[in-house]
């Protein structure tokens, strides 16, 4: 269980994370979504006691991370797969962690095997690893202490499609056995396949959170017409809240019936009218976080 309570981090006047609160329950996978620079990594570092928050607090398993006596046995953390000593072998990285946590060093080989790093790869130095291999090593590092909670920052980065599919299975299985997973991503598609809950962050603030299905249902109706401009006018005239997509369609926060009725009254020819499911969530994600990604370059 992870509880994040009004976490705030400011660097000078610049707020990186502003009043972020959410909970991750055992047995669930929580997707932490947001564009680059939205504050995902800073939030995760604050949860793990690596970045002191300006205000607010976070607990893991009911305790602040820094009060956990042996955190590696409670929480598996992967914050940056590239943050490993380039001169150590993959096996040595895990052996050092195993000794630190007091885990039987025989688990090292078993965990390497679990993440698909063969003995030849394990003997090589991290310098020679591809990003995908570093992610696998990082995941092995997180799983080594047999934790009940996983905190993973962009774990799918650099993995090939097969690797992403494998990782989803692994995380789903971990959660189904009662574990708690928090994983971040800037790619909606990557997260919606595995997450039960979503926390969407933009510009340092939580802009939406809830069950995945609930957020999907709330996404509204996708509508497309032969004449998009007329449709826009019609929707505006009918007082329906519509957001233009990139491909000429609109996501409307209303029932399909209401949208169809408005179009029929105006005599418009619709080419598509359906409940906006995943596409709608993508629209939601784009609109909710619009503008926040441009702030990153300033940071």
């Amino acid at each position, binding site marked *: 269980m992870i509880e994040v309570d009004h976490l705030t981090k400011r660097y000078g006047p610049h707020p990186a994370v502003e009043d972020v609160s959410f909970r991750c329950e055992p047995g669930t996978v929580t997707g932490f979504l947001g564009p680059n620079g939205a504050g995902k990594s800073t939030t995760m570092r604050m949860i793990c006691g690596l*970045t002191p928050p300006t205000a607010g607090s976070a607990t893991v398993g009911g305790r602040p991370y*820094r009060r956990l006596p042996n955190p590696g*046995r*409670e929480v598996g953390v992967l914050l940056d797969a590239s943050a*490993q000593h380039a001169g150590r072998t993959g096996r040595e990285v895990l052996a050092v962690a195993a000794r630190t946590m007091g885990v039987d060093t025989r688990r090292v080989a078993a965990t390497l095997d679990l993440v698909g790093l063969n003995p030849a790869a394990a003997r090589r130095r991290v310098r020679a690893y591809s990003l995908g291999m570093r992610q696998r090593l990082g995941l092995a590092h997180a799983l080594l202490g047999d934790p009940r909670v996983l905190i993973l920052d962009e774990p799918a980065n650099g993995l090939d499609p097969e690797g992403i599919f494998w990782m989803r299975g692994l995380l789903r299985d971990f959660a189904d056995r009662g574990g708690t997973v928090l994983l971040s991503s800037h790619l909606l598609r990557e997260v919606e396949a595995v997450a039960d809950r979503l926390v969407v962050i933009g510009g340092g603030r939580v802009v939406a959170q809830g069950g995945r299905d609930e957020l999907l249902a709330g996404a509204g109706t996708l509508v497309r017409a032969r004449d998009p401009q007329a449709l826009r006018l019609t929707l505006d005239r009918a007082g329906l809240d519509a957001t233009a997509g990139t491909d000429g369609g609109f996501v409307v926060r209303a029932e399909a019936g209401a949208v169809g009725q408005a179009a029929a009254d105006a005599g418009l020819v619709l080419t598509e009218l359906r409940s906006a499911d995943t596409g709608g969530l993508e629209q939601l994600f784009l609109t909710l976080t619009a503008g926040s990604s441009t702030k990153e370059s300033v940071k």
Partner: protein
Amino acid sequence: MSTDTTAPPAPAVPVRPADRAPTLARLTEVELRKLVDTRAGRWLLITIGAIAAVIVTVQLFVVADEQQTFTDFFTPSLLPVALLLPVVGILSITAEWSQRTALTTYALVPRRERVVVAKLAAVVLAALASVLVSLAVAAVGTLLAGATGATGSWQFEWSLLLHAAVLQVVNVLMGAAFGLLLLNTPLAVVSYLLLPTVWTILASMVTALRGPARWLDTSATMEPLFGPDVTAGQWGRMAVSWLVWVAVPVAAGLLRTLRREVS
């Protein structure tokens, strides 16, 4: 006879025996391992040993026979260690930041002061081990000298051993202190290695600095440690220089490490 069949309620959060914090001994063992498990660390240590061996070899060929004694081999073998082992101390601290392993190290051990103490303990053990290596190198040199017809005298003042241990331990701690304060490899290495030179240059140019230099220039205050006799006044001056160049930077660096954001 009544039997209580109800099992005691399971604790809400089962405490596993492995949930105890790692001991300082174990953290020190891990830090010792980290000194040698990279190519850079291993070769730095091998180089230090090799230079000590080369010095003894050169002595066997060029120095007069009556000066080929155990003591004469032992003292110069301390020099490469005194110069380079502190770099191992610096790297032990700064590599965590330059290689960004601090992210995993301090996630596994959030009480960062324990990691720092373990690192200091590890480099002190390395310094003590280096004295044993110096003894071994000097012994081999003496045996060879005896075999080749030189004096090969085993005469040795045991106070030298203590002084050598103090010298190496303080030097490596001073290196670690610089690393801890600056948290940056090149900056720490350069300032550590340049400091004695800077003192020499400054003291030769500014007469007013010559007095303080006798108390603050570690290369001057620790000079007596290469010999068997150290006076109380010399110990006093040494202690002052250690306070300024070891104790203060360790304290400030520890504070900096505890507060620093790891990213």
